[in-house]
């Protein structure tokens, strides 16, 4: 960012008001507080202004103004990011897209829909109910998160084990580029000419521009489901069962694990009848044709029992199935019962290394005197240890950051990654140079320069700055947002 003197706040606000109108912006300190962080609450910073555009044209005008006045800007959806993706480093204008939430077209014959970025994920699938089709990516936060946010973070969800993540279901995007131009990458026709810029844009975490329209692929609904709950004495036995299921050539639609810590909280919240003394449960779903799913379910039951399951229950009715999924998807919500704050990690390991990483997490929690519970996408090897703490307790915060760093480092040692679906954001930026060589980062940076040369759009995200935080040995200091916020 070059260092022209900041424009007067007054000027910025009045020019923005001209674009989005009186009810399209917030700038009072108290109102801005809502926007000081997202689902990652460890680091905080308020933007100078929040705007709520209602059209691509308004987004263009806002972006052009920011360029003219040399003010950073950052897109935001529902703010459910768990990696601090929406932290407005350097302040500036937050462009919140939640008022652009229309479904512009549903075309079942050509199996796509066009939606605005602020549309809440589950609203699309609800809208498609009668068609026999759905939008496959189903993050656990789907009741709140937006499709634009999903595109920016390449979100996953429980059913991505079989159906793939967001990028596998996005055909095209309309983007307001950081220079204020509007471009469409991809569209309803597959295999467009040139590079797969849609694929490159998905997961770019707001650093390549602001997505204002999305062409998504619609997926045929499965005819039938079998939803099983495998109850295990230990986490290790459960992870062995996972390996055995995948090893047997079965790709379930979903394969989720919940450990004892989270089961307790879920039971208190939902009274499902979870076994409170179990070490871990696996929530396994197979879907497909009625003629096929029963056979698969029986095989899975057998594999679970061979691997030490105490029992394998089945959801007998659709109501029971939906309740099970509600428990799973609202697991984070139930954590409120366990502690005032929590930090969810998002490491990935090869699935065969699950026993090792889970043992490490237990051990890590003990060493740092922290309670850690686990609820995660086990079939993909995508762990979500949830570190419980009280954010008013400085020392606990310090230990949470330390333990998080240790767990993610261990994921790397085991051949994995530090983020399976939540993104790098600001939270994991210090890991980028552990995950990638300087040459890798140099290429990524040179690509960002093509799209976002002044780094005015979502500054401080995804890539470490030269000589920056990556070299900091102390994790507490290495969080740029935290430093920016302090």
């Amino acid at each position, binding site marked *: 960012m070059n260092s022209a003197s900041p424009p007067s706040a007054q000027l910025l606000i009045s020019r923005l008001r001209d674009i989005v109108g009186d009810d399209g912006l917030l700038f009072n300190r108290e109102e801005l507080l809502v926007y000081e962080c997202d689902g990652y609450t460890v680091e905080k910073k308020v933007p100078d202004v929040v705007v709520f555009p209602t059209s691509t044209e308004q987004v263009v005008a806002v972006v052009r103004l920011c360029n003219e006045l040399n003010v950073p800007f950052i897109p935001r959806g529902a703010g459910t990011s768990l990696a601090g993706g929406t932290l407005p480093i350097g302040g500036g204008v937050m462009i919140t897209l939640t008022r652009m939430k229309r479904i512009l077209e549903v075309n079942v*014959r*050509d*199996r796509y829909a066009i939606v605005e970025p602020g549309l809440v994920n589950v609203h699309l699938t609800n809208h498609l109910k009668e068609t*026999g089709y759905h939008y496959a990516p189903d993050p656990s936060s789907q009741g709140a998160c937006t499709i634009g946010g999903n595109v920016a*973070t390449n979100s996953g969800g429980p059913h991505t084990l079989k159906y*793939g993540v967001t*990028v*596998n279901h996005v055909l095209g995007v309309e983007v307001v580029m950081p220079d204020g131009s509007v*471009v*469409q990458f*991809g*569209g309803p*026709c*597959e*295999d*467009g*000419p*040139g*590079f*797969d*810029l849609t*694929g*490159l844009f998905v*997961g*770019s975490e707001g650093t390549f521009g602001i997505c204002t329209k999305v062409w998504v692929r619609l997926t045929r609904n499965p005819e039938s489901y079998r939803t099983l709950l495998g109850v295990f004495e230990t986490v290790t036995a459960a992870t062995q069962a996972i390996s055995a299921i*995948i*090893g047997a*050539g*079965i*790709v379930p639609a979903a394969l989720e694990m919940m450990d004892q810590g989270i089961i307790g909280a879920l039971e208190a919240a939902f009274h499902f009848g979870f076994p409170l003394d179990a070490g871990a449960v696996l929530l396994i779903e197979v879907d497909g*044709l009625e003629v*096929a799913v029963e056979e698969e379910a029986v095989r899975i039951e057998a594999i679970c029992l061979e691997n030490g399951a105490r029992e394998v229950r089945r959801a007998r009715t659709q109501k029971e199935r939906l309740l099970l999924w509600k428990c799973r998807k609202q697991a984070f919500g139930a954590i409120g019962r366990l502690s005032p704050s929590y930090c969810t990690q998002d490491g*990935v390991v*090869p*699935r065969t290394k699950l026993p090792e990483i889970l043992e490490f997490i237990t051990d890590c929690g003990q060493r740092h005197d922290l309670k850690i519970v686990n609820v995660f*996408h086990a079939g*993909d*090897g*995508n762990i979500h240890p949830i570190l419980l703490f009280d954010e008013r307790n400085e020392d606990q915060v310090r230990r949470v950051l330390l333990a998080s760093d240790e767990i993610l480092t261990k994921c790397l040692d085991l*051949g*994995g*990654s530090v*983020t*399976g*679906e939540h993104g*790098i954001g600001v939270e994991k930026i210090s*890991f*980028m140079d552990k*995950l*990638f060589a300087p*040459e*890798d980062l140099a*290429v*990524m940076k*040179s*690509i*960002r*320069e*093509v799209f976002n040369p002044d780094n005015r759009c979502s500054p401080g995200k*995804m890539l470490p700055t030269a000589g920056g935080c990556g070299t900091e040995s102390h994790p507490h200091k290495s969080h740029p947002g935290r430093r920016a916020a302090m």
Partner: protein
Amino acid sequence: MSDLQSVFQPNTQAELAQFVTDNAANTKRSLQPIGGGTARCEVNADNVCEVQLDLLNRVIDFPARDMTITVEAGIRIAELNRILTSENQRLPIDIPQAEQATLGGVIATNWSGSRRFGCGTMRDYVIGISAIDASGQRFSAGGRVVKNVAGYDLCKLLVGSRGTLAIISQVTLKLRPMAETSAVVALTFDSLSQVDAVLSRLLTSATRPMMLDVLGRVGALARPNEGMGKSVHPPVLIVGFEGASREIDWQIETLLAECRPFEPRATESFAGAAAEPLWNTLRDFSMDSKSSVTFKASLPPSRTCVLLHLAIEAGIAVQAHAGNGIVIGNLSERVSTADQAIAAIKPLGELIRSCGGHLTVLRAPNEWSALHVVADSWAGSLAWTQRLKRQLDPRNLLNPGVMAFGPA
């Protein structure tokens, strides 16, 4: 083309990187990465060095229980398939000339076939990639785990980049289990409008096809512009299934029942080993050696049959992946000049443009370069594509002339 051509065949990725580094520093020749040479593109430069990658064929790691494999990019597809089959796994992309074609080439050209309806394309399977850029720098993106959003997804950028951005040297793939068995049902109809009606019906079929192809064959007597005369075979809808036997049997029966009201003129089903030859024929359609030009068109699936009709009228033999709106066309063997080829393709252009589609020539005689820009519609993304190319290969050393980047 001058006669300064030469060939370099590295034994290791390090050797490759060194060579490209030296080239960038000294001779600055244009480099043309070559895998199996099955989908060669013609580069537009005087001083070209072919970089043959087929010796980079090692398996780096195959943790079968994790269902991923890391290999060097020059590995032949047939060899890769043998390795995966030994663990009952596969990369479910239909690739012709597998004994020749290399993984790197398949990725660079984003090759796909009939199974793309049920299984997707290369972009859905490449989870980690290493490549050498034009300056000789080796870089990587992605990783070796099936789910990973760290860093920009350069795998997507390189899939389909046709060797213009970097030379792909190593790849990690996500794998799928082998299907227990498969079946193919071929339904012949009197007209394409009937096929179109069936395709609409199948949108809510109780079955879950892996393949929805339509074949429009042109008889030996067909001549360009002859129209839908007797020499044109009636269109055939080909539906493929994969899974357990019971599931397959049920689907064949259900599909036939669903199609009966549309009165197909003939139906044939092939299950298990009997289906194999048909899958292979469909896989190899674009390699028809009698035809001099093969193109690939893309349009909304609902427009597929309209395009097929136009193509058949123009004497073009066609295969459509109808669920995806992809049409492969082989021009008549009678087409013997670029002008004739352009004239044959032209009638399709208007329809394709009007619905935002694209047409790319996959195969044509080298001299017919005029053909390569017939009907690509870039919709504004061209400028960004060119900027990326300039950023990663500022001297235009890698495959100049390919993909609308202009000659060296």
